[in-house]
């Protein structure tokens, strides 16, 4: 009856969210008085999961699952859940986990709560807190089914290290026809993605044009951050659609969000409410973003950002 957690990896390496969902699974398992079993698919260093409370790893090596496929991964996780008689399954909020979770919910006839930000407030009834109305509110949700699926919001629970050792067991699920075939993947390998980022540096229409994004990228690189933008910026084609943050774009749940030349319209703020610390740089002291921010600089981005880059470089050099 252990709590089952799907720990994502990329090219064999666990993603940071894998450790976060493992930490979350451990908290749930403690509440239920049971153990944590992790599913690792084509991951190389499974012992790393020991440090986050995992008791046992079901180790899947399968070339059919080399590229992510929602149906194939669903079948693997379903069979693992049946084998372990798991009634609680934990996933992250990555694009891939959100892709497979509803399929898994149907195949296990399980209720699914996405965007969950805290450990359950009660396990009977099983009640979790999730974000709703694009981060303008929280919803307490009870999952009524026997089997429950929880999608944990990235960067919400954090990493909780525990010393321990996880046993490993090879597991070979049967995977049928995948239905959808990956033809190609287009991904910048050296960039931090918005979903995984702890820090996001975002630019708005105040930057005047795409030619000025060099300083945004440089600031992001000094901080090891992802870059993002407001909606008009992607609509104008200054930046790719995938960077557009907000109610109709991507939600951001980073530890630090730096908004440069962004006014702070309600639809933009909705997407970044879940970020912990917000810094705003804007020429207009009346910009609505200052009401939502923790720290603000009233000033011209073209003057402030280059200086900030220098200060941060000096700070990093000292560390």
């Amino acid at each position: 009856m252990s709590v089952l957690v799907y720990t994502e990896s990329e090219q064999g390496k666990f993603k940071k969210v894998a450790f976060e969902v493992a930490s979350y699974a451990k908290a749930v398992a403690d509440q239920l008085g049971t153990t944590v079993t992790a599913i690792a698919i084509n991951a190389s260093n499974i012992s790393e999961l020991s440090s986050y409370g995992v008791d046992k790893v079901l180790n899947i090596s399968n070339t059919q699952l080399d590229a992510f496929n929602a149906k194939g991964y669903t079948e693997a996780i379903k069979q693992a859940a049946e084998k372990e008689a798991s009634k609680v399954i934990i996933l992250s909020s990555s694009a891939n986990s959100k892709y497979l979770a509803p399929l898994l919910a149907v195949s296990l006839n399980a209720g699914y709560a996405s965007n969950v930000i805290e450990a359950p407030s009660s396990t009977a009834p099983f009640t979790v807190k999730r974000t709703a109305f694009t981060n303008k509110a929280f919803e307490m949700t009870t999952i009524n089914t026997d089997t429950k699926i929880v999608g944990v919001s990235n960067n919400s629970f954090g990493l909780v290290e525990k010393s321990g050792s996880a046993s490993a067991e090879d597991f070979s699920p049967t995977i049928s026809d995948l239905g959808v075939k990956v033809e190609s993947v287009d991904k910048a390998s050296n960039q931090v993605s918005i979903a995984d980022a702890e820090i996001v540096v975002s630019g708005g229409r105040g930057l005047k044009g795409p030619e000025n994004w060099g300083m945004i990228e440089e600031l992001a690189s000094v901080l090891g951050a992802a870059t993002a933008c407001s909606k008009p910026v992607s609509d104008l084609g200054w930046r790719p659609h995938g960077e557009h943050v907000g109610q109709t774009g991507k939600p951001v749940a980073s530890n630090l969000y730096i908004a440069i030349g962004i006014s702070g319209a309600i639809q933009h703020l909705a997407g970044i409410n879940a970020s912990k610390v917000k810094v705003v740089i804007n020429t207009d002291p009346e910009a609505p973003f200052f009401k939502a921010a923790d720290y603000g600089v009233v000033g011209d981005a073209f003057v402030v950002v280059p200086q900030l880059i220098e200060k941060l470089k000096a700070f990093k050099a000292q560390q």
Partner: protein
Amino acid sequence: MKILVCISHVPDTTSKINFTEGDTKFDTNGVQFVINPNDEFGLTRAMWFKEKQGAHVTVINVGGTETEPTLRKALAIGADAAIRVNTAASDGFSVAKQLAAVVKEGGYDLIIAGRESIDYNGGMVPGMIAGLINANFVNNCISLEVDGNTAKAIREIDGGKETLSTSLPLVIGGQKGLVEESDLRIPNMRGIMMARQKPLTIVEPIEANNETTSVKFEKPAPKGAVKLVSPDNLDELVNLLHNEAKVI
């Protein structure tokens, strides 16, 4: 091609979010309802298929009579027919079950839903429909082409995109990118007049339990005032981010 576009009836993006009845119900007072933005991209793509390749487009919503103006708007944009499943949309799984029942009955080739609705953000309806009717599924879909029985789709992944090939019947969870923002349509007078003649069928719901129950809502705690740092003293900002906020 028979296309079904799932339309969620949601508060306008500028809405103030409030709750009533001891914070258990969303307060609709003074709130404007619109077609969910992710669904609007999907509806526009369906119009493209209709005009360029020939398709019959039905829009559907699970909800009470109050959602009919939203369905009429979708008809005014150009959908051929509308269906309302006559039951309150209470949780994602039960909504998906209602939609899947209509899909099975109607034999649709392509089901377009939004990646998520901007009210409850469940992100589960499209995938659950696919699971329930055993169709192929592409989530976070930002491009879709259909040729006969085969489909080519691009989906957004964390930090990039992925090109996929698959076949019909297909369900997509669509989003911005499916069509250009500038291609979104505002109903014109002629469309609005024509929408009145188009069929809006009311279907009674199948029996479906709620797998999840919304118990209570909370609003985020009010924020403290912003700490302003002078542009001439950025060392202070670095210091605050390091020592006070502890984020760098």
